[in-house]
């Protein structure tokens, strides 16, 4: 199929429909409104169902219900709206249900602003809701990658019965790039024999539940979920390493910030500074092994993490490299975007200290 020029938000919606998503429940918020708008138009054309709920809390509980019935279902929102959905997300994780949640991040805290940010990293990868659980968090950096990861996200959710989040930002949602909707090889997925599709006496009753009053039963339940997380870590971790061979400084960044850093690698090369880029594509599971293996190399003198936040992923980078090399941070927040020249200045400063 040929390429089409699409806004990130619309591409996410179209990719979801092509991946078989037939249910969308949401509540409007900038900068992701094109997703529900596109779904409202397209879902009825393919026999699906779009509901603009009365609130984010209602929307995520509709997702919970549809996921329990075995549907491919998604919701999308932006930072403050995702905060409202956290109770439902924790229930969905506790009940082991698959769904896709899109967060097109804007500046915070509070109502914050509407410009792009990455300050929801902690919320996405460290919990957000209550209890012991993880979302699988995918962080695309181009619209093509977003489209590819939407399908993958639904498949991961179904394979492991766990909610998956796409973590984008306002820039990725609003910009346009050419995309191609490729025919993907379908994953072999387990049957949804746990779904509440109506009991006719021919199988054990399906029960969707996240309440376990007996603490031993709850511990066993959580342990089983965490065993699944080990499988996810082993099978689904994704990372891109660019220019890392013989790099003096490795910069780590994800999403659109990684694209800005990529521009900086060329600017630095012109000044004779060798920098590499490690771009985690899955933020959970985090590519800790990859970072650690580069930290063990002699030519790598220091790490710099660049984010549109006050420093969140940098904590995972620091943990991963485990004191082997110094870990630095540079970020802008509140909807401000790091400028290539400022990142380069930071790199030169670090180079002065560490080399």
């Amino acid at each position: 199929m040929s390429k089409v020029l699409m806004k990130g938000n619309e591409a996410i919606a179209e990719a979801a429909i092509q991946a078989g998503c037939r249910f969308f429940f949401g509540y409007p918020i900038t900068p992701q409104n094109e997703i529900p708008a596109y779904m409202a138009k397209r879902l009825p054309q393919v026999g699906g169902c779009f509901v603009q709920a009365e609130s984010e809390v209602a929307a995520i509980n509709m997702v919970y219900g549809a996921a329990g019935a075995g549907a491919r279902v998604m919701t999308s929102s932006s930072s403050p709206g995702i905060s409202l959905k956290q109770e439902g997300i924790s229930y969905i994780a506790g009940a082991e249900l698959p769904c896709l949640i899109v967060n097109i991040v804007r500046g915070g805290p509070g109502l914050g602003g509407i410009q792009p940010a990455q300050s929801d990293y902690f919320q996405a990868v460290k919990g957000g809701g209550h209890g012991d659980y993880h979302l699988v968090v995918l962080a695309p950096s181009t619209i093509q990658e977003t489209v590819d990861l939407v399908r993958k996200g639904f498949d991961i959710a179904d394979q492991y019965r766990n909610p998956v989040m796409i973590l984008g930002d306002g820039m990725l949602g609003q910009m346009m790039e050419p995309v191609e909707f490729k025919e993907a090889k379908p994953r072999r997925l387990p049957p949804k024999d746990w779904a509440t599709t109506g009991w006719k006496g021919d199988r054990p009753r399906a029960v969707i539940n996240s309440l376990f009053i007996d603490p031993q039963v709850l511990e066993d339940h959580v342990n089983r979920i965490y065993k699944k997380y080990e499988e996810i870590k082993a099978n689904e971790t994704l990372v891109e390493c660019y220019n890392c061979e013989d790099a003096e400084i490795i910069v780590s960044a994800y999403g659109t910030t990684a694209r800005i850093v990529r521009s900086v690698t060329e600017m630095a090369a012109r000044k004779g500074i060798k920098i590499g880029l490690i771009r985690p594509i899955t933020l959970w599971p985090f590519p800790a092994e990859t970072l650690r293996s580069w930290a063990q190399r002699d030519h790598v003198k220091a790490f710099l993490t660049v984010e549109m936040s006050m420093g969140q992923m940098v904590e995972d980078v620091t943990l991963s490299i485990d004191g082997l090399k110094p870990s630095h941070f540079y970020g802008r927040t509140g909807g401000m975007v790091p400028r290539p020249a400022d990142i380069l200045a930071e790199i030169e400063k670090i180079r002065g200290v560490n080399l």
Partner: protein
Amino acid sequence: MTEQIIIAGFGGQGVMSMGQLLAYAGMLEGKNVSWLPSYGPEMRGGTANCNVIITDDMVASPIVTQASAVIALNKPSLDKFENAVIPGGMLFVNSSLIDRKSMRGDIEAFYIPANEIADELGSSKVANTVVLGAYLAKAENSVSPKSIIEALKKVLGPDKQDLIPLNKEALKRGAELIQK
């Protein structure tokens, strides 16, 4: 070759659609492109801008901080983006609405009375296309006017194909102004 463009003006002047046409035309020519809009609380009468990148390489950052060309359709846009033009780059000024000249000596500046020409053509709506025509006549590394027309045919859809001749004429008038 990489073309990095900032287009800015009042909301309603067609800033966003100009950028989309450039990106679309670049895609039709098989290049890598990106279009990034400002999406603040802009509305009709407010200011709006977009960044367009057209390149043979991959598009790294979609943000344009060092523009090969800036197109300013109103005065606040000129004030804001004049300094974003790289030395040797190009600045296109809508002289119908902007009464000052460029203060830079290290760039090429072009003054296009876009609204007057659009009114002569019978529709003030094509002022943006007039400036686009001027830009295309100068920017050798950008897309061809032919691709812009192809893109316009696709963007307008089957119901609005009657607008094509007017836009073709507007592109031509903009280009002629530069070549004079």
